[in-house]
């Protein structure tokens, strides 16, 4: 089988055996977005205005939650060293792991976002834009996050450090992702936002697996 697809399949199967890890990030996303109206108040106009930002920040944090585990288990049991030594290119295997992380951590958020958007009184077309923006943005978050996960692999205080390294790099995705929904609500065209998100995704898809591979090699030296 293709080594890329084999890695994706393996990671998804492993995660399915331990469902709690996947569900934790999803529950986190649901709980955080539901806390905001309780903290701010139930005023529909205000909630509608801040909904894109809240949903996006919650998605950022939920993605971050699963990142430390991206390579940790494979590092612990020696699988990662086998991957480095295997004849198939490490970049391809890493890309497979990143895709698996997105399928387990990013895709559920994309699917849940329209339901959670209803809590904030977003209409159907705004929910559509939100879903589309998250569909383009969450893979970007997984790709950038993987670099941070590789650099902090096996480092003490890795989880907090990972947040410090990765969150500043998430800012463009946040700006254009949340901006698309805001622009749509304001009655503006969202094509620019979405194409910029897509451009960043393409750029990250090229460079992030490469940087992640370099980071992993350093960690395993």
């Amino acid at each position, binding site marked *: 089988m293709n080594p890329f697809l084999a890695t994706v399949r393996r990671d998804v199967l492993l995660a399915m055996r331990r469902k709690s890890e996947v569900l934790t990030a999803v529950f986190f996303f649901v709980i955080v977005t539901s806390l905001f109206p309780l903290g701010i108040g139930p005023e529909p106009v205000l909630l509608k205005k801040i909904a894109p930002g809240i949903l996006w920040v919650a998605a950022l944090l939920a993605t971050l939650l699963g990142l430390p585990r991206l390579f940790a288990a494979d590092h612990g049991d020696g699988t990662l060293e086998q991957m480095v030594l295997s004849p198939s290119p490490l970049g391809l295997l890493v890309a497979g792991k990143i895709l698996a992380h997105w399928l387990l951590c990013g895709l559920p958020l994309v699917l849940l976002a329209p339901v959670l958007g209803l809590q904030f009184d977003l209409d159907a077309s705004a929910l559509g834009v939100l879903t589309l923006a998250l569909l383009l943005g969450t893979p970007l978050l997984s790709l950038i996050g993987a*670099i941070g996960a590789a*650099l*902090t692999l096996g*480092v*003490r*205080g*890795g989880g907090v*450090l990972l947040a*410090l*390294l990765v*969150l*500043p*790099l998430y*800012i*463009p995705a946040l*700006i*254009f992702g949340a*901006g698309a929904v805001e*622009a749509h609500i304001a009655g503006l065209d969202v094509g620019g936002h979405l194409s*910029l998100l897509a451009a*960043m995704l393409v750029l990250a898809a090229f*460079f992030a697996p490469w*940087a992640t591979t*370099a*980071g992993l090699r*350093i*960690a395993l*030296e």
Partner: protein
Amino acid sequence: MGDHGGIEDCIRVSQSIVQWFRFASPQSFYPLAGRMVPWFWAAAAIFGIAGLWMSFFVAPTDAQQGEGYRIIFVHVPASWMSMFIYLVMAFWAGLGLALNTRVSSMMAQALAPTGALMAALSLWTGALWGKPMWGAWWVWDARLTSELILFFLYLGFMALQAAIDDPRRADKAGAILALVGVVNIPIIYFSVKWWNTLHQGSSVNLAKSSMATTMLWGMLLMALAFWMYSIAVALMRVRAIILERERHTEWVKHAVA
């Protein structure tokens, strides 16, 4: 005859390259840095005095902002240096990663705290400038926001290097982070700028209020002073880093005797 000269040239060039690589070893860079430090301090002092003289006694009062605008003479140099130092740091870190030269990685590590300091100064002076001009200590202005993110990037770089015990691994991991940061800084800057124009941020544009040439000179002199200061401090710090990391080698034992 001509061929002969060519060969001699080649030898001379390769000798000078060897000379340069000699300085790439910690052993020879340590005393060289020590000899350079006083010169950079002197330059920083001269530029600093000239710059302060220009900024307080030569530059005229601004028509719109009165005397408050004089903050520009430290704010702009600090912002410039914070961005420039990040680029230089990433360059040294990348060189250390590519050529495996220890001194360049140490130089990157020595530059980071100075860069973070410059970013902090830029934010502090920006807030003090913003209060009388915009009426608020903090405004989500594109430049201030990017500066804040740059400050976070510096903190991340230093935290990553501090968290990794093996210095060689810390160097390489830091280099990758710095290079990823360099790719991201323009993207972050333009996204923040775009976000800012969409939300009609307030931003004082000083270039429009016809800056006097003396103001520009004051700013340039202060920027030169900050530049020389940064080099001097970074060289001092790199000397300490060299000794800390090479403490088990023979030459260090002789150097401190």
